[in-house]
C-alpha cells in the first residue's frame, strides 16, 4: 500500500515537474541545507549548554527557552523541503535503507521528546536555581546529539547508495 502511494505521488504533475527541474530541485536542497545549519546549530548549542560545554556564561533557561521557537521554525523549513524532495523520488526512497533508518531515528526523536520534555526541557529554570545540571539532562543532551547527527548522516547516505531493489523489497512488508 505504501509502495502504491509512493508510486502514485511521484507521478503527480507537481512532483514530476520537481524531479525533472534543473533548478527548483537543487534550490529546495539548498534551503534544506540552510535550515539544517540554522536549526542544527541551535540544537547543538542547546545540547552543549546542558552538557556545560557552551554558552556557560548564560543561564540554561535563557538558551533553551529562547531558542525553542526559532528551532521550531527551522524544523518546519527542513521538514517541508525534505518532504518535497521525498515526494519527487518517493519510490526510490521507499527502497532506500538510509531513508528508512532516517525515519526510525526521527521516530526516536519524538520518543526522546516525550520522555524528556517534562523532566528536562521544561525545567531549565530549576537547573539555574540549583546551579546544577542533573544527570538525566546530560543524558538527554547526549542522546539528542547522537540522534540528530545520525539523522544528518543518514540524509547524506540517501543521496549515495543505490538501492538493492530485490532484497530490500522483500524485507519491507508493507
Amino acid at each position: 500500500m505504501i509502495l502504491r502511494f509512493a508510486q502514485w505521488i511521484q507521478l503527480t504533475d507537481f512532483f514530476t515537474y520537481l524531479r525533472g527541474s534543473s533548478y527548483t530541485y537543487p534550490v529546495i536542497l539548498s534551503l534544506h541545507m540552510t535550515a539544517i545549519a540554522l536549526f542544527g546549530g541551535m540544537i547543538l548549542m542547546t545540547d552543549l549548554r546542558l552538557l556545560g560545554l557552551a554558552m556557560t556564561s548564560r543561564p540554561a533557561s535563557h538558551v533553551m527557552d529562547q531558542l525553542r521557537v526559532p528551532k521550531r521554525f527551522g524544523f518546519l523549513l527542513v521538514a517541508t523541503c525534505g518532504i518535497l524532495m521525498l515526494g519527487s523520488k518517493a519510490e526510490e526512497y521507499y527502497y532506500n535503507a538510509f531513508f528508512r533508518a532516517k525515519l526510525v531515528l526521527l521516530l526516536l526523536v519524538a520518543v526522546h521528546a516525550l520522555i524528556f520534555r517534562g523532566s528536562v526541557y521544561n525545567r531549565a529554570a530549576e537547573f539555574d536555581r540549583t546551579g546544577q545540571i542533573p544527570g538525566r539532562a546530560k543524558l538527554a543532551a547526549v542522546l539528542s546529539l547522537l540522534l540528530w547527527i545520525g539523522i544528518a548522516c543518514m540524509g547524506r547516505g540517501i543521496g549515495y547508495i543505490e538501492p538493492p531493489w530485490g532484497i530490500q523489497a522483500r524485507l519491507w512488508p508493507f
Partner: protein
Amino acid sequence: MDSRGPIGQNVPGLPNAHSMPITNPLNASPLVFPVLECIHIAGFALSVGTIAIVDFRLLGIGMRRETPSQLDRDTFYWTLGGISLMVFTGLLLFSSDPDMYYLNIAFDLKMFFLLLAIVFHYTIHRKAVRSDAAGGGKLVACVSLALWLCVVFGGIFIGFLNSTLDIDKV
C-alpha cells in the same frame, strides 16, 4: 547526488590524469567521500548555526535577553571550530577531484562568497556585534546571513552543474 565528477577525466591543458604517479588515498574507498561530507556538514552547521544565532539576535529574533556581544563571546570558539572543521574537510573533499572543482562555476562562486563571508565575519560583523550596534546591526546581520546562504547554495549547485563544465576556462 554525488558531487564528484569522473575521476581521472582528461582535461585539455592539464597532465593526463592516468599517467600521474600520485594517487589520492581518499579515492581508495567509496565511503571516504560521504563520511567527509558528513563531517563537513557538521562543521558548517556549527559555524553557520552559531553565526545565525548572533545574526538573529541583531535582527531582534531569538535570544533577546542577551546582548549580541554576550552571544558573540559565548559562541566565538564554537564558530571558529566549526569554520576550521568545515575548511579542513572541504580541502580534503576538493583534493579528491580538483580539476572537476576547478572547472565548476558553482565552486568558484562558492569560494568567492566563502572568502567574503569569512572576511566580513571577522571584520565588519565582529565590530558591529561587539559594540552591540543598534543602528547598522540589522544591515550587518542581513549581509552576513545572505553571504552564508550564497556559500550553501554554491556548495549544493557544485553537484548539479557537473555537466556544464566550462572547458574554455583552462
